[in-house]
């Protein structure tokens, strides 16, 4: 918005930028990521977050190898609701299943929801934001009014309505989080586009005859990458949180597939008898959320992004 309109300066720097862009762009980009990586490693909390997040990904990928039993496998009916022991480190649940195995498989659900929902957010939010920001005018007004409407209702309420419409299940959750979460991304990308649109290298590209598609893909999106990455990192714990909440009240992941939220919710029915059913999945949710928040905070500082939320 606050771009200088000094046309004399423009002529000089356009020429400069054209030549610089041809040669200097690749090395500058590499050093940006290199610097960011070094700054990230210096941040203790971010490193802790990264370690926990990597462990979670490994657990999710190798769940079949790590879990001693299947998630729906009845291990010992006579041991129902027994407390943690050497053989069953997290105890046995109300159906005689191994809680540890179910927590391990739960990681798969949480991460899958986190990533898949973010892909939908990306697929809707980036094009909408880019078009609104680049073209401006009526299109911008129309798209942003739509964003305002979705924004006016808390995301969780909308998600609950969509889940109510389609019935519980994994694909519903992806869809519901994606369809309600894209507005934040669209706003972010639009803001980026508005500021980058006035930059000299974009003007230079336009003057030399590049079309909108080329300019957006080649110049504007690559230069908006850092805030998008940070927003995606923060979006993952949000999606995991929403899935856990839905499953907790029994409208999320359908049993017998385990999800941490759902395990906490069913565990609550047995809380007077045993408490371990709720404890371990609760810790898993808390750790995951913490890890991704640490990582997001670290990335934001390392990439020096200001998210205007």
């Amino acid at each position: 918005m606050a771009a200088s309109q000094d046309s004399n300066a423009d002529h000089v720097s356009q020429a400069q930028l054209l030549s610089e862009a041809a040669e200097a762009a690749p090395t500058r980009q590499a050093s940006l990521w290199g610097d960011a990586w070094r700054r990230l490693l210096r941040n203790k909390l971010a490193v802790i977050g990264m370690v926990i997040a990597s462990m979670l990904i490994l657990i999710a990928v190798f769940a079949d190898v790590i879990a001693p039993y299947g998630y729906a496998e009845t291990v010992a009916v006579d041991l129902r609701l027994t407390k943690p022991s050497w053989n069953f480190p997290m105890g046995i649940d109300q159906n005689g299943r191994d809680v540890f195995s179910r927590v391990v498989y739960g990681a798969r659900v949480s991460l899958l929801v986190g990533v898949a929902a973010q892909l939908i957010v990306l697929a809707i939010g980036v094009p909408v934001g880019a078009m609104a920001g680049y073209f401006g005018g009526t299109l911008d007004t129309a798209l942003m009014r739509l964003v305002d409407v979705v924004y006016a209702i808390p995301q969780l309420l909308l998600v609950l309505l969509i889940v109510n419409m389609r019935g519980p299940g994994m694909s519903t959750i992806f869809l519901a989080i994606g369809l309600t979460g894209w507005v934040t991304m669209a706003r972010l990308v639009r803001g980026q586009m508005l500021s980058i649109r006035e930059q000299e290298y974009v003007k230079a590209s336009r003057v030399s005859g590049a079309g909108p598609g080329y300019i957006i893909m080649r110049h504007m999106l690559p230069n908006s990458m850092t805030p998008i990455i940070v927003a995606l990192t923060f979006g993952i714990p949000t999606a995991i949180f929403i899935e856990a909440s839905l499953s907790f009240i029994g409208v999320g992941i359908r049993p017998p597939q385990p999800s941490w939220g759902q395990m906490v919710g069913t565990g609550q029915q047995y809380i007077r008898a045993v408490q371990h059913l709720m404890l371990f999945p609760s810790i898993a949710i808390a750790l995951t959320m913490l890890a991704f928040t640490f990582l997001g905070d670290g990335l934001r500082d390392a990439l020096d992004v200001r998210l205007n939320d």
Partner: protein
Amino acid sequence: MIRYIGIRILWFIPTVLSIAAVVFIIMQATPGSPFTSGGANMRPEDVARMEEQYGLDRPMIVQFGSYVWNAARGDFGESYARRPQKVGNIVARTFPVSFHLGVMGLTFAAIGGLTLGILAAVNQNGITDYFSVTLAILFFSVPNFVLGILLLLLFVFWIPGWTGISFFNLGGWDSPKDWVLPTIALGAGPLAIIARYTRSSMIDVIRSDYVRTARAKGLAEQKVILKHVLKNALIPVITLLGPLLAALATGSFFVEQIFAVPGMGKFFVTSMQAKDQPMILGVVLIYGVFLAIMNLFVDVLYGIIDPRIRLSGGRGD
């Protein structure tokens, strides 16, 4: 000033109507009318008669119009699951409980968050700062229902188990001591947001020129913080109220469920499980409109406190 408030109020009407429209469209797209779902074995002509009686055969736009008109008068229809109770009556009974919990949560969040944020900013990079930042990030990232469950396990099961002294009940809403744990669980997230925001806002102001001037002219540090920094640093914190209220409203679903609080959130959850459409529609609409009113209130308040906002025109983005 009047112009600013006027623009704000005019914006409120389309906002509320679009909330109602989004909710209505989603509910229309929800398959199954109350007379066909749930294994009710009715003859098609009976279904048609019932739909006519409830006005479900009229054009969509007419249905929307009459829904909005009735809702504006507080009539949200009959609950499917708790017939013949009216949605409006159930809400009238349960909303005050949720409101009460929400106000306590907000108070807890405001007092705790401001204290932590101010202490952190004043002792920047000291032990207090480290402590508050850590606590804030913990509260910020742990979901309210997880925190609620950990509180429940700790204070209702483990501490009584170790010490033999039990103070808190497993749930309920009968005595003031039942209010404590839900309030903490609900308010912790907002508390963290307020603390983080207050801290960074304070630090921005502390680094500003007029604070340097105030110090340079020899004012005591305490006076600088109280008279110059606090006043200006707290203004932006008010903008947080909108998102915070949304967090408190949606948080109440889960917190009320955990602590068996007889509020609107708990009713909403049981309605979701029972597919009680009028109840769901009514509660979402009431929460949406309530938040829109609160946002309007916050905008006006902000305009009164900070003249820069109302001079820069209507929309603050």
